[in-house]
Structures are given as structure tokens and as C-alpha cells.
């Protein structure tokens, strides 16, 4: 899966995570939905979190039925969809965010929009836009063969989610099929900020590492620098989504929102370098 052959930036993702590891720190991975609050506002927000210190950004492709998302991301998806966001807008978001920063940009979404759009068409267009890969949390490994075939052809990483409930043999099956990194869900639940990151996360990272050389990044519930530092103590990356979206939702205007996410990214970037 070489970036020279096609436009997909899986290698850039791998290099970025390796560089963070070489610096003896965890990577900071931010999530923001495309089209929220507007397409251009969403692009500006991604640039702001990169500017603040994020290493990787996951761009959400909004879906009408986000069954794995809590109220914060549901609200953002609603706003984006009511604003008329289309897959072409998501691809433009990826293209502009990557072109402006040179950093790895992934897409995170539900399976139906991509199934409907066409797997070959989407992977081709995402690679052309400079995307690094996809996270598809409702496409389990046993249904993913067609997707992986096309993603690999286009130089795109396929990041699978593992959960505290995943059994060891299942973890091995998932990590063998995945690429880029492994997304370890810190807890059993949907997206959203939590008071604390449970002890389940560390145990899951340990069990996952036993099956793979891929970086293992932890998401769900991480919202502040102290949590980021805690997770950075045992994981290769820290994934933060709802906390960024909430800053945007709570801001009285877009400019304030952009400043807020830039500031949060800066604080979290410091957290992942503290390694509690």
C-alpha cells in the first residue's frame, strides 16, 4: 500500500504516528464533522485544530441515523445535514484540510452512505482528495472484505474499532485485517464526554497490543488534558471528538468557536506529551 502508486495517504498516517512514538509521546487525533457549522466553517475548524497541535484529524461524514453517537455529535450531524452537506463537500473538506496542512486526514462515517455512493467510487475519490483512510464503526471485520480490497488498492488505511467486550481471538482477527492504527473504545457506550476514562481502556490496549504491531489509539469519553495525559500513559494516540464539537456548539459565533477548538487542541497536545 504505497502512496506513490495512488493518492491515498495511508503511509503519511503511519509516518505521523511513528514520529509521535519517536518523540516518546502519544499522538493527538481530533474528530470534527464535515459541514458543521457550515462546509467552510468545518474546514476552518479542522485547520484550527491542526494549528493547535492535532497530529491527525478524522472528518465525520454526517449520517441521518448516527446510532453510535451521543447527543453532541448527533446535534452537529443534524446541523450539517440540514445545511445540505453532500459527500462532495466532505471530500472537499478532506482535500482542503490536507492540502493546507500536509497532515493525515481520515474519514469516519457509517456504512450506508458509502455503500450507496459506491465503494470503488468513494475510495477513488477519497484517495484523489488526499485522504489517509476510513473508520467505519458499523462495518465489522466479517463484512469488510469488499471495502478493504478497494481501500488497499487506493492506498487508504482501514481503521477498525475494538471494544472492551471484544474477545482475544476476535481482536487478533480484527487487527490482522486493519491498517493505520487500531481504534480502542475506552468504554462500552456511544460518543460523548465523560468524567473519567475507565480502567477498561488500559486493559483493552494491553490485549490489543498482544495481537498487533499497529499503533493503538484510545477514543470515547476523552475530553480534557488530564484525561489525555492519562491515556497517553498507555496508548499510542488519544482520540477526542465530542469535546471539540461541544466547543463549537457552545460558542456564540464561529470565530469564537474556532479559537476555542484551537485552544483545546493546544491543551490536549500538551496533555499527550505529559504522559501521566
Amino acid at each position, binding site marked *: 500500500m504505497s502512496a506513490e502508486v495512488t493518492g491515498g495517504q495511508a503511509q503519511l498516517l503511519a509516518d505521523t504516528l511513528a514520529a509521535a512514538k519517536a518523540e516518546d509521546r502519544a499522538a493527538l487525533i481530533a474528530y470534527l464533522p464535515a459541514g458543521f457549522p457550515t462546509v467552510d466553517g468545518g474546514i476552518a475548524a479542522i485547520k484550527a485544530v491542526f494549528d493547535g497541535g492535532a497530529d491527525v484529524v478524522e472528518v465525520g461524514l454526517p449520517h441521518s441515523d448516527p446510532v453510535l453517537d451521543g447527543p453532541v455529535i448527533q446535534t452537529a450531524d443534524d446541523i450539517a445535514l440540514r445545511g445540505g452537506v453532500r459527500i462532495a463537500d466532505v471530500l472537499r473538506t478532506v482535500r482542503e484540510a490536507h492540502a493546507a496542512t500536509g497532515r493525515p486526514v481520515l474519514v469516519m462515517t457509517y*456504512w450506508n452512505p458509502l455503500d450507496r455512493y459506491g465503494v470503488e467510487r468513494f475510495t477513488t475519490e477519497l484517495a484523489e482528495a488526499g485522504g489517509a483512510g476510513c473508520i467505519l464503526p458499523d462495518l465489522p471485520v466479517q463484512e469488510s472484505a469488499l471495502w478493504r480490497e478497494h481501500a488497499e488498492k487506493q492506498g487508504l488505511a482501514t481503521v477498525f474499532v*475494538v471494544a472492551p467486550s471484544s474477545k482475544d481471538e476476535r481482536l487478533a482477527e480484527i487487527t490482522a485485517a486493519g491498517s493505520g492504527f487500531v481504534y480502542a473504545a475506552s468504554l462500552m457506550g456511544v460518543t460523548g464526554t465523560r468524567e473519567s476514562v475507565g480502567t477498561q481502556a488500559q486493559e483493552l490496549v494491553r490485549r490489543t497490543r498482544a495481537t498487533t504491531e499497529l499503533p493503538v489509539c484510545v477514543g470515547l469519553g476523552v475530553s480534557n488534558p488530564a484525561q489525555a495525559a492519562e491515556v497517553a500513559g498507555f496508548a499510542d494516540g488519544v482520540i477526542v471528538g465530542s469535546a471539540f464539537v461541544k466547543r463549537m456548539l457552545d460558542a456564540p459565533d464561529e470565530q469564537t468557536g474556532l479559537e476555542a477548538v484551537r485552544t483545546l487542541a493546544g491543551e490536549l497536545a500538551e496533555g499527550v506529551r505529559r504522559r501521566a
Partner: protein
Amino acid sequence: MPSEFFVPDPEGQVPDAAGYFGAFGGTFIPEALVAAVDEVAAEYEKAKTDPEFARELGDLLVHYTGRPSALTEVPRFAEHAGGARVFLKREDLNHTGSHKINNVLGQALLTRRMGKTRVIAETGAGQHGVATATACALFGLDCTIYMGEIDTERQALNVARMRMLGAEVVAVKSGSRTLKDAINEAFRDWVANVDHTHYLFGTVAGPHPFPAMVRDFHRVIGVEARRQILERAGRLPDAAVACVGGGSNAIGLFHAFIPDSSVRLIGCEPAGHGIETGEHAATLTAGEPGILHGSRSYVLQDDEGQITEPYSISAGLDYPGIGPEHAYLKDSGRGEYRAVTDDAAMQALRLLSRTEGIIPAIESAHALAGALEVGKELGRDGLIIVNLSGRGDKDMDTAARYFGLYETDASVAADADSETAEIEGDAQ
């Protein structure tokens, strides 16, 4: 009661081991639910061959639900159906008032076998919610029911029934605030509480094994109906007709007749205000293949895979998806699916009430309206079984508003009488 009532003959059956009915089905779920869904599948496989499970479920079906349900011939109604003979499979006479109890009791037994102490469920019309709350009361399980806010309003009676039975009812305010959104919210709950909670899914959709398992628990409908019609009419019917939202009562009636190639299997989808208006929930008629709530089937969606908001006067059919086995039956040609408008369903509801003294649920009235058409197509020699999947008590507020029954205004009453006279006149 022997296990034949809920375990189909494995010979040549779908789904395959991966849960596929041809191109439809599968398991499109988050990793966090994989272990739980695997556990349900494994427990169900064990239960199917356990005589103790068969005995327990059989006892409940007879002594609690009141099975077998009656097969009632409705000659005065049939006069409006081209003179064909029409029989109703009376699932409305089951305890709790609909077919939903068949599946709920089976899954409640499984919940207990898995050692789980809490049950969650979605509900549209409230019939699945009431059945689930009933089983939870019976088995001493904690119960939370998710119901779209719009549905809690139009099915307020069932909300009260669920609360009386001790269930917590959560009004879901996201999305279209109907059945689809109730399922989304139930999935969110399940992901967070899966260690002690079973999601008692109410229809033949969702990830494998739910489409097959829920079908098996409802298969008793068709097994009984087939035996009853052979006794009563001396032959198989020309058509088995049922309404389809998610498709559980329809597959329950159809399944035992699938090998009988002379029996047409006809599903009636909600056309709402008419397919051409876009305000409908006719998934097989107007949808495209896609993934919703854990499996591939037909889905009402736009060109980029966003699910579109369905509409039906019937809360129980107001759903943009459909069970994968119905998609398979449609594509293979074994099943036929037609769309029935709100108006046609409401006319059929009143017609059955006034000709036979049976008030059907609005869901089931879609099947009755379909049967009126099918009967005219078949003519006097026709023989039809309609699944009367539920009773209409819960719908009296909607029906009263639709027909103006709350008015004491004499002109409204007179109008209603004259329409009935027209109906009667048509039959002469």
C-alpha cells in the same frame, strides 16, 4: 406443544451461517455489540434443540397467550372482496392484543437463560412495547421501552399500559421521532449496558440472528393457520395477506406456506398519502437496497444513503426499513408486495368493524384493504387468509379523529352513515 411451532425445518432454509437471505441480511453492527449478538445467536441455537425450552415456551403459548388463535371466516366483509372467501387469523385475540407476544415470550425465556436482568425494546404502535412490558412483569425483569415522541402521542393508551405494567417509557425526541429513532436510541442504550441488558428486538429486521429468530417465534401463526384452513376449507388458500412494516406478522403467516407454491404471499405496505406524494413508508415499493439497523435490506433513502423520513397513519408501519427475508422474497418473486394508502386502510378498518364486529388495528387494516383488492382479482372461487395482527383499541383516538366520531354534530354522523350505506350498497 412440540418444537415444530417455532423451529423451521432446516432443509433448504435461509438464512445461511452468516445470516444472509440471498443478498440481504448480515451483521452490520458496532464491535461493542458483536459479543452480545453472538451470545444471543449461540443461546438461541442451544434453546432450539432443548426440549425444556420447547416445553416452557409451548406452555406459555397455550396457557398465557391463549394459542392457538382462532381462524374466523368473515362472510359479510367478504361480500366487498369480490365474493372470495376470507378468513382472518386472529392474532388480535392473543394476550396483549397482537401477534407481538409470540416473539416476546421466546426472547424473554432466552433473556433468563443468558442470566440478563434488564430488557430494552423499541416500539412504534406500542404493541411490541406492551408485550415486552408484559413479559418483563411476568419474569421479573427490569424494562425500558423506547418510543418516538410522535408515537407516544398517537398511541397514548399503550404508553399508559406499559407504565401500568411497570416499564419505563422513554419518549425519543431525535430525528423523525418515530420508530426508526426509537430503535437508534435502543441501540445506544444497548451498547452502554450490554453486560446485563438484552435488546428484545421486535421485528424480523436487525442484525443476524434477529431476522431468523423473530421469524421462528412467529412461525406458529402460519403453522396454525395452514392446519386450520385445511380443516375448515379443505384446501390451501390462494393467498396469504399481511401488513408489513418491519415484517414480523407477515413472515409469521407466510413462512409455513413458502413451500406451497400455489399460495400467493402478499404483503401490504403503507402508502401513506400516496407513493407519488413522497409521504409513505412503502420500503419495498419505493426503497433501494441499503443498510439500516444492522442488516442489508431495502431502505427508504436518498441518493447519498441518508435515511428519509417515512410517513404512515399507522405508527406500527411507520418505518423506513424492512426485514431482509422480505427483501429476499420480493427479489426471488415468491412474495408480492403492494402499497395501501391511509385512506384505503381506514375504510377497511371501518368496514370490518361494521360488517363483522371486529375492530382491527390500523396496521392490520392495511392487510384488510389489500385483501379487498386481492379478493376482487381472484373472484368468487378465491380463498384468502388475512393476518389480523392486532386489535384496534389503541387506535380509537386516531380513528375517531379520522372519521369525526368525537363530534356530536348531526351532519358528521349522517355523513358517516351515508358512507356506510354506500359501502353496503356496493356489495349488493
